[in-house]
């Protein structure tokens, strides 16, 4: 198994696509940090959490990673994670290389696990890379000090919440926690992508289906008329971590988010294994 994982890592790392992704994940957060710095104190208070995090970011460099994570986890990280997961099996199939891998004494379930594990590790690495880059940029430009978060006007209750202070230790711990939550939030996407990847020999098709499923989930999740059905969507609880920085609370939605991700992993992970083990390899 270790040998299989090692070779899959080699295949994933040693390619131009990975370098481009790494460059984007370093470059874009850097650009965002510079933009926050250039924008300075010209802030708007429109009650939006993402906006709110950006509004707070200039207060301390230790808040910048959270702001950048909020900006990038909504789409770019989804695209990257979808690409890594969707390409896991279909990439080899589209090269015609999958059949040669399977003509080795390598059990299919083990191969699929190795591919999903490598894709998952890369997704976590990408998330961590974004946070680290933002942290370096943020601390460089804004320093690493505690921050007093001012109260906000809540449009739903028409009241102003009280402010609070986040110490350096709290900021570091919550940033780490947010990173883990966001990275884990791509578990459903990983399971879906791996499953789609076993269904087709076309890498682009699997990637498109994975990202498409997330976009559909986002759109449906925004329709309140769907009621409780939305709670089962893989994207519904993805932003639940932001309350740690905006309202100084750990939302119960984070627990629900973890449970939803685990359910998707169980269902689509099992489906991927069952399908791939029985599949006729025609590529």
């Amino acid at each position: 198994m270790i040998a299989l994982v090692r070779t899959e890592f080699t295949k994933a790392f040693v390619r131009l696509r990975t370098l481009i992704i790494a460059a984007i994940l370093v470059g874009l957060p850097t650009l965002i940090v510079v933009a926050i710095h250039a924008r300075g104190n010209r802030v708007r208070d429109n009650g939006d959490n993402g906006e709110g995090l950006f509004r707070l970011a200039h207060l301390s460099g230790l808040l910048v990673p959270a702001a950048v994570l909020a900006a990038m986890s909504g789409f770019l990280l989804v695209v990257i994670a979808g690409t890594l997961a969707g390409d896991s099996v279909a990439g080899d199939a589209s090269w015609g290389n999958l059949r040669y891998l399977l003509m080795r004494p390598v059990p299919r379930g083990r191969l699929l696990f190795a591919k999903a594990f490598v894709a998952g590790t890369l997704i976590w690495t990408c998330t961590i890379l974004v946070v680290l880059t933002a942290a370096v940029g943020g601390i460089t430009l804004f320093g690493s000090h505690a921050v007093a978060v001012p109260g906000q006007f809540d449009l739903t209750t028409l009241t102003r919440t009280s402010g609070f202070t986040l110490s350096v230790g709290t900021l570091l711990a919550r940033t780490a926690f947010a990173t883990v939550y966001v990275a884990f939030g791509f578990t459903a996407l990983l399971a879906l992508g791996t499953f789609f990847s076993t269904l087709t020999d076309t890498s682009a098709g699997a990637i498109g289906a994975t990202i498409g499923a997330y976009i559909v989930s986002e759109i449906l999740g925004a329709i309140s008329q769907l009621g409780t059905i939305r709670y089962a969507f893989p994207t519904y609880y993805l932003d639940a971590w932001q309350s740690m920085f905006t309202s100084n609370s750990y939302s119960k939605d984070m627990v629900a988010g973890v449970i939803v991700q685990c359910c998707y992993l169980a269902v689509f992970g099992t489906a991927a294994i069952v399908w791939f083990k029985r599949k006729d390899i025609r590529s």
Partner: protein
Amino acid sequence: MADAVEAIVDVDGLWKSFGSVSAVEDFSFRVERGQVCGLLGPNGAGKTTSLRVLMGLERPTRGDVRLFGTTVRPGCHEFARVGAMVEQAAFIPHFSGMKNLRVWWEASGARWRDADVEGALAVAALGTAINRKVKTYSQGMKQRLGFARLLLGRPELLVLDEPTNGLDPGEIREIRELIARLTQQGATVLLSSHHLSEVEQTCTNVIVMDHGRLVASGRVSDIIGNAGGVYIEVDDRERARTLLANLPNVANVIPQGDGLLVEMREGRRSDLAAAIVGAGLRLETITPTQQLEDAFLHLLDSRVVEPPKEPAR
């Protein structure tokens, strides 16, 4: 009772269906150790599907497929003893040839030092190009690299599906010579090919299939010898024509060029030669016209094709 000769490949009653379409129907054959066995059939005969099932890429609908006496399952250990090239050789395009070989070999946990990579590279003869990215290779280079890959670890059985597809005549000859060298070293080979002359020159045995079914199998010489023609040149063609037309084992005598084309029902060429010489004619040339291609086409033409059936459950 155990077979006297070890069957490296033993396919028994194989059926493979895709929905309502049967690709392979009740197909059985054996390849014994040391044989170079050609799998022949027209397009759509089921050759590639049979080889894919043999290599665990596709599940048989019914029947038993064994390698080295063990029933084939995806990822089974016996694959470590097999080098296979099914359809085109395919690689990770952004890796060098050498990196491709190594990643493929090590995926199963095998040690690189056990791969006998020098021997495999000598076969590929890619020189310094082995360190170039595969996406810069020509089709012929990829095919040679494919041969290097299947030879890693000195497999006991080589399974080759149309190994010379896409190669120029010089490369085809190289591959043919390579197969001959490998069989001299004791490898067992099962190869499918459209090139009948290639099978004739390379293989000791042949399996002919059509519409997913076995048509004939046996030694190449036996398959060729079952029916055939002889080209004869003599000093008096018209006399010889009359003489030969009256022989009981001759079906037809047709003038061709300076000589006669004799279609035989049965018997040997030496019978014709004896009759000609015995009649006082001078025999200038006698040569078989029957080649594997003729035998192959004869077998397919004479076969009554029944409509496909559903495999029995």
